[in-house]
């Protein structure tokens, strides 16, 4: 799914909510991953200059979950360690989005460097 405008952030939330419901995630788990998606989608649109979200149902052995991947070709993050510090902002709250999404997910992966864009993957298991 393309993430370019604010409307896309809403569409992303709705898509994740639907997928989480279909996967029969508990209500709190649903809310957590939808909120994480909202944060990351916003990051992608506002800081990453637009990008994509991929959504897939994953299985590992006999457990199932929802995996979201947000990728953009934006400026990238120079200091990953600093970015993941609570409360770090690059002007308008990029840091909180990342740490927030990490707290709300079971798995979190961040891949970014200046000039290389950013790629964030989060997973919520059932």
């Amino acid at each position, binding site marked *: 799914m393309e993430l370019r405008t*604010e*409307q896309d*952030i*809403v569409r992303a*939330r*709705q898509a994740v*909510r639907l997928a989480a419901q279909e996967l029969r995630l508990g*209500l*709190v788990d*649903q*809310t*957590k991953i*939808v*909120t994480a998606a*909202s*944060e990351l989608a*916003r990051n992608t649109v506002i800081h990453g200059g637009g990008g994509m979200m991929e959504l897939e149902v994953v299985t590992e052995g006999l457990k199932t979950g929802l995996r979201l991947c947000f990728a953009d070709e934006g400026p990238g993050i120079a200091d990953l360690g600093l970015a993941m510090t*609570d409360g770090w902002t690059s002007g308008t*709250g990029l840091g*909180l*989005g990342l740490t*927030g999404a990490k*707290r*709300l997910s079971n798995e979190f992966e961040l891949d970014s460097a200046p000039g290389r864009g950013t790629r964030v993957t989060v997973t919520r298991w059932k």
Partner: protein
Amino acid sequence: MMDRIPILQVGEFLLVTIQGDMHDQLALSLQDDLTSRIEKLGSRGVLLDISALDMVDSFIARMIANISGMARILGAETVVVGMQPAVAITLVELGLTLPGVKMALNAERGMAMLRTAQAQEDDLQNVDQE
């Protein structure tokens, strides 16, 4: 998709009910609309009903905190009502505890809180004037 969130006037208070999916621009418009409305009507309180929100992220949390802060400067108290349990748990997990924002369980209690706050304000003012 809504263009603007409706603001209802209830006596000296303003009632705002936030429905479903709110996009960022809508949140910003709401802040503007509310502040101008408070000023124009001299409202003493704002009741922000979020019982229909099934998700509150950092942007919306900030909006709520902003509304509360700006309203207070303009002389109005804000009470947020109807936060869903799943939303509360998620916010706590995010570490966003909205300090300084008043909360109530439902609209009824929220209104009571606003009236009490208003009465207290009035009392204080009366004392000042004596």
